[in-house]
């Protein structure tokens, strides 16, 4: 009697037969569930990983960038594409707002994905198989994956990571043989056709004898755009949901806010440099909610990116 003190002798009252039965059934069920989880580690193939390394967002994005530079075989919509060797280590990074790289995996092989975040928490959500893992900044989470079906997969982000969260979507392609690559448009020419960006990397291949030419700068700029993830917000197809699109941007007059005051600027070399080095200084009107973070670009890279933006002037 829930509002009154229980009747005399309540503590000694025998438990009814049916209640006893139910409690026993429940308890056995609980034990079974416990054992089941343990057994799945022995006989099952799907268990969260036990391997994590401490890292920092800076260190991991450096590892990731080096990995991409070394292994990239092409670009898909601004996302670098990598075809890792089975059982190799893959550096897979989430940042606001993209997953990088896009992967080509072989069906039935194991891969060691090192997953981490450059900024906030992200959620690695592989569809349509629907496998979901939490991605932290500062933790290198090593997940060993074995794709069991060939096909095209997408990686959604299912942990809120800011206003562009819904645009964060990556791609994994699982093939049975190299023939399949054509189906996805991933039959890129030889790997060496992609020039390495920056000044500190390998020399250009035989086909590009004049590395300092304008053409090479544009190519290198596009690569910086891909590697650094500018593409996550700045599109080149005219869509501008999170940030101004780059096509037709150079030479345009833009309304920006500086110290709360609205002024007009012309997008030229100096303005692009300023926007990269101190992005919070002038914020384009209409994009106040998605202020750009600082990306560490050296002078050479800034020059190349500027060349790339320039090349899109009339597109």
């Amino acid at each position, binding site marked *: 009697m829930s509002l009154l003190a229980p009747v005399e002798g309540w503590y000694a009252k025998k438990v009814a037969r049916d*209640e006893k039965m139910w409690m026993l059934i429940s308890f056995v069920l609980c034990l079974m569930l*416990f054992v089941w989880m343990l057994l799945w580690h022995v006989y099952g193939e799907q268990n969260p990983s036990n391997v994590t390394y401490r890292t920092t967002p800076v260190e991991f994005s450096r590892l990731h960038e080096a990995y991409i530079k070394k292994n990239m075989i092409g670009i898909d919509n601004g996302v670098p594409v990598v075809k890792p060797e089975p059982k190799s280590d893959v550096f897979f990074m989430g940042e606001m707002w993209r997953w990088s790289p896009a992967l080509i995996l072989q069906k039935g092989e194991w891969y060691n994905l090192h997953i981490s975040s450059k900024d906030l928490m992200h959620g690695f959500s592989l569809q349509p198989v629907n*496998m979901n893992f939490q991605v932290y900044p500062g933790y290198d989470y090593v997940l060993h994956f074995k794709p069991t079906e060939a096909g095209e997969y997408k990686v959604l982000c299912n942990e809120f990571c800011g206003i562009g969260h819904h645009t964060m979507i990556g791609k994994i392609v699982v093939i049975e043989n190299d023939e399949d690559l054509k189906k996805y448009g991933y039959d890129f020419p030889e790997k060496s056709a992609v020039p390495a960006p920056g000044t500190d990397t390998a020399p250009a291949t035989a086909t590009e004898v004049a590395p300092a030419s304008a053409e090479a700068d544009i190519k290198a700029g596009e690569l910086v755009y891909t590697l650094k993830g500018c593409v996550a917000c700045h599109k080149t197809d005219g869509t501008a949901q999170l940030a101004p699109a780059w096509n037709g941007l150079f030479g345009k007059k833009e309304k920006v806010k500086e110290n709360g005051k609205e002024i007009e600027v012309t997008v030229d070399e100096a303005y692009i440099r300023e926007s990269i080095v101190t992005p919070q200084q002038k914020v384009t009107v209409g994009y106040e909610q998605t202020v750009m973070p600082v990306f560490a670009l050296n002078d050479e890279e800034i020059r190349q990116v500027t060349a790339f933006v320039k090349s899109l002037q009339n597109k």
Partner: protein
Amino acid sequence: MFRTCDITGFKVDLKAQQLIRLNAVFAVISLLGAVIAALLLVFTRYQPVHLLSSEWYYRLVTYHGVNALIFWIVFFEIAGLYFGSTVVLNIRFCAPRLGWLSLILMVAGFILTDIMILAGKADVMMTSYTPLKADPLYYLGIILFAVGALLGVVLFFGNLMIARQEKAFGDTMPLFTYGMMTAAIIAFITLVTGAIIYIPTFLWSLGLIENVDAGMYKLIWWGLGHSSQQINVAAMVSIWYLGSFLAVGGTSINERISRLAFVLYIMFICLASAHHLLTDPGLSSAWKVWNTSYAMYLAVLASMIHAFAVPSSIESAQRRWGYNKGLFEWLVKAPWSNPAFSSIVLACIGFGFIGGTTGVIFGMEQTNIIVHNTIAIPGHFKGTVVIGTTLTFMGVTYYLIPLIFRRKIVGLGWARWQPWMFFFGIALLSVSMIVLGQLGVPRRHWDSTFSGGPFTYNFNPATDFFWTLMMLGGTLAFLATLIWILIVVISVFFGPKVNGPEDMQLPISALAPEGKRQGKYEAPGTLILTLAFLATFLILFFLNWKWLAATWGVY
């Protein structure tokens, strides 16, 4: 100052009554805000309408979460704690001035937090995982509210001390108060955990601390986030026993067992928060399995015990009232027109069949992989917190209006329908969300067409159907909540005064007569129902594991 209730005969401390009323009023205000936001959110995720901008969508997800899961529920629970420790025990409130202080702190926190969210200074979701950062005043608001609530919990224990001194109860306190004490103990642990994580986060947002580790934050935050839901469960189950008592004069068929189950909650539930970290880096499988099995399952066991004890208390009483034919006459002839009773039974069913089954399955280390952060997770807790706790609180309010606010219920005819509407609305909403989540749809996601992304993804076409069901369920539940709020507000502020037992619209049953049970079983109908529940659980269990086994290999 006491008044003696002319309906129940309880002595009611007028100062306690005032505090109970005010806490309940703020609970209703919070709920109103939460459900308005909920409707806008449903119509944003329902892609053909896609109502809000992404900015406002995430802002209102935060607002809805904080108001529905924290403010509405904690305000109501503080009212419940004061009720259980003063009115039920016929004693005075230990320190009314501190009661006021607690209320002022909570209201200040409530207002500050909501202002910061709506001003766009805290688009961080209820979980506010670092390094996502909100304005310091947002964290301050939560801290003020938590300190106020903590003070309320301490006052509850103060009341219990007075009750002991005055020998207000014999051997042990009534089961309702015992259950509320369970809630209070868990609340204490929870709120302290909250302080442990919100205070450094507050300092970090001020720039006084350099870094709050994301892993540490999430681990400790769930000590608050999950355990606080266990306060709800304990309070809800206490009200279920109360409802059985008020509606049919039922009492637990074995109080020792019911109390044992409450103790299990206290001892084991807090560690179960580990199931929020099952797919996270940094924690070993051994840690995950240990914390989510031995701890969680003994708490699950407690819920299973209540799942038998609550309906069997109704069945046993009904049988003693003479509804003894067959297995289910007791259920058919139950007082279904009493909205408090129907709320409680429906809450019990929804909590078990929707929230309970999915909770256990999603909380296993491996099956969590196929639901983590999908919309199935909010689907699950719509089944626990909304159908379970919220509907229960709504139901018991139909008794609080005449007994505590001393007003007649205006629109009793509407009230009889309201629990059913709410139940079907949320059930539809919740089940659709669970199915959508199983098909991969993420939670807290503005645009399922991924506009602006480098790629796109088309979900299984079946999702269109479930989005529609979800929208319909959400709308139905919104209307049901609105009806409830209107009934409560109109009754409390404009309803005719209750002047005596003749104005009591809902019956308060006498204690069911003593009687010998016939046959071997005390509650055979309940046993059948619980076995049906078990069968449902096992079916869902194997479906989920089957799906998991079809995914990629991972270790």
